[in-house]
């Protein structure tokens, strides 16, 4: 290798133990660009807990606190309280959990933290199943998915839990979705969340899992991009639980996204049609809220 090489790897070390093409790995790279080095991560059990380094190794140049599966949010709040006692108001505390650690086992601690409006950023990197233990379904697993606990004809018949609406219901200052395939938007949202300080900020990250989804590792970004372009994973922000902004409107049918993945390969055209209708309805709901936000804001503004 030539000596002139700039080995700028940001705030991560190479050599993490994630699968080739892991979306969580890309997500942490993007996220730390927005968060900066004054960051502490709190990580519960999940794939990323392994990737962040088996003891005595670390894959990140920022401190990490490993915590129990159910306790990411409260542990982060605890770290925040500790830092406050030390007079450190600069460092950002970030809980970094999978969908299992967010939607399922982690939700009571997350809800409690959000209700107390503790000063942390909670990031859910969502790969839509319990990947670290072998692809078991979670409540973030979408309708139509085959997992090891929803195999064969028993594919998941219930829809994905809408975590964003749950978080909005807590009226926290900021909740946003982000996708690894849209780095500019992704980094902007992390930087914005960092600057907001003082309350609970929640970021729901779309994070492909080539291994669990039956997708070639090389297509991890392409698939993620399709998720947003088909409106299955819209990019939007909610401030104070009520002010909605849609960042990007997709232009592709859901079939382009679903058809490219092994976990959805069994779906019939009728299934796709049903999913399309749900996706359209969900997007329409977001659009209604965006429109309502605009009307409300126009109303609040004094006439000029």
């Amino acid at each position, binding site marked *: 290798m030539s000596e002139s090489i700039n080995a700028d790897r940001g705030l991560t070390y190479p*050599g993490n*133990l994630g699968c080739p*093409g892991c979306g969580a790995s890309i997500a942490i790279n993007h996220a730390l660009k927005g968060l900066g080095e004054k960051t502490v991560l709190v990580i519960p059990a999940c794939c990323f807990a392994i990737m962040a380094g088996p003891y*005595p*190794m670390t894959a990140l140049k920022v401190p990490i606190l490993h915590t129990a599966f159910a306790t990411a949010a409260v542990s982060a709040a605890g770290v925040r309280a500790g830092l406050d006692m030390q007079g450190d108001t600069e460092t950002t505390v970030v809980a970094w959990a999978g969908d299992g650690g967010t939607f399922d086992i982690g939700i009571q601690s997350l809800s409690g933290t959000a209700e107390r409006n503790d000063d942390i950023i909670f990031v859910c990197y969502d790969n839509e199943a319990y990947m670290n233990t072998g692809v078991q379904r979670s409540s973030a697993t979408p309708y139509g998915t085959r997992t090891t606990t929803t195999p064969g004809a028993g594919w998941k018949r219930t829809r994905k839990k809408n975590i964003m609406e749950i978080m909005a219901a807590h009226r926290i200052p900021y909740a946003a979705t982000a996708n690894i395939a849209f780095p500019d938007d992704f980094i902007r949202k992390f930087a914005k969340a960092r600057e907001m300080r003082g309350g609970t900020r929640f970021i729901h990250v779309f994070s492909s899992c*080539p291994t669990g989804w039956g997708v070639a590792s*090389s297509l991890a*970004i392409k698939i993620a991009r399709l998720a947003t372009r088909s409106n299955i994973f819209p990019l939007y922000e909610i401030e104070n639980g009520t002010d909605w902004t849609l960042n990007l409107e997709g232009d592709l049918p859901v079939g382009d996204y679903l058809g490219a993945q092994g976990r959805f390969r069994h779906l019939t055209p009728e299934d796709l049609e049903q999913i399309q209708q749900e996706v359209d309805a969900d997007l329409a709901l977001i659009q209604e809220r965006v429109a309502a936000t605009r009307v409300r804001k126009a109303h609040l503004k004094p006439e000029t």
Partner: protein
Amino acid sequence: MIASLRPTLLFPVSRTSTEANRTGSWRFVRPVYRFKTAPCSAACPAGIDIPTVEMLASRGQIHDAWAHICRENPFPAVCGRVCFHPCEDACNRAELDAPIAINALERYIGDAGLAACSPLVSPAAALLQREVAIVGAGPAGLAAGYFLTQLGISAEIFESTEEPGGVLRWGIPSYRLPKAVLAAEIDRIAAAGVKIHCNRPVNPDTLAEMAARYDAVLVGAGLAAPLRLNISGEASIIDGLAFLKQVQAGSAPVASGEVAVIGGGNTAIDVARTLLRQGARPTIVYRRRRQDMPAFGHEIAAAEAEGVRIVELMAPVSAAADGNGVRMTLQPMRAAEVGADGRVRAVPAKQPPQEMRFKAVFSGIGAGVAEPWHRPADEADAIRLSHCAICRGTPTVGYIGDPVTAENSVAHAIGSGKQAAIALHALFTEGPEAVAPAVDRCRVGPGPALSMEIYLNGERSRRNGRVVTFADVNTDYFLRAERCAIPALAPAAAANGFEEAVATLKPRDALAEAARCFNCGICNDCDNCRIFCPEQTILVGEGGRRSVDLDYCKGCGICTVECPRCAMDMEEESA
């Protein structure tokens, strides 16, 4: 403190990094940076590195873009006006929306070079003690002189007329190519060290004298003999090429009324549009179908928009002059089968011949070789290359330009001069056996375009010859965007005089147009590979050159898929 409560015992802290895990050992395929060939550049007879030129232009580095063109073509302002731009027909962007306006951008960049009075870069190769004489200061001869100089070989051009330029000067009307633009680009070639002697006609005797004094002679005499129609009354038909020359010299009689131009090539179009500008009403009479006309499509369209009438499938049988003009007898034709040349033949239709009257009739069917010594003898011991022929012996005599190129255009003439310069350099430095391989090595993709940068072992020589297709482009990164409108005079206004019919792009439009380019097959520093690499293994070296840290690359292949322009490939690990 109680020993068991010491924090280090309660909180195990990781103190080493995962860098110890050489995850590169997991890999069974590896990404490689492999820059490839853009279809436009392979289609350019002058072999210009178009993706790089557009990349530089899109960044506003117009001078760098200009210098980059000049490595392969010393005539950007000329070609930006007169080239038939086969590059645009090959452009991948056509499949998304519309091809890049490569020709208009070349003109924009070329004009910027003229405005800045930028000198051509000095010779890139070591000086050789060799001297080459060139017969004819047309585009092929001037290009040969320029490229020889680049290769450290001194070149002297002998031109029979009083000014250099050849067909560019006397054949191409000034509404397409203003004389000042031509003169400025020729002056720059002279300033780069090419000696140009005017009023020095060469004949076989003087050629022999020259051959004795120089290490080689290149003959680039062009096509100067008008082709004959071989019909009765031909004497009453005016030679279109001679007419164009007279117009350039300001000595042509002004035509008026209904006039005819016979032919379907670019000469016919140039003659007709010139006549129109003199105030006449020209009709082009062509023996095949309109779509079979060999003239460039955009020239035909411009002529028609200005008011030139085209009569297809009419073959002249005879012409007769009387006091009032010329009476043409024309045979109606019909399209027949495809001929040996691959073109649809025209054969006489059943209808009887027709008569048409014109104030004057011009022939515009092109030209042939004026003197037998302007092209190599069939029996000569010659290295026959795609764009030139080098006859070995003492002395070495090479032939360049229209008499030896399969297609005749300014860009082909430039390619011809370049090929001859490379051939002579290889001959002088490594001997006759080296000529064909040297030329072959310079091919841009499958060729026949040739690159001087490749010959000089520049960055392009490390590119892969595979031509990038539209399917290779990751169109996730390109939104549809309208092609720039090329500013032009309204046809009616253009037809009124010899002012340039087409204008140069405005800076904003030029930059936006250049930014539409996919930059097929090259790296434009978009950084996608690095941004999306999950392992942070993409390293950036000097000049933005990227490499993969194979100690850690797991071979996921995301970089290669997300490179919008196919500058990377995945390769199987060899065990």
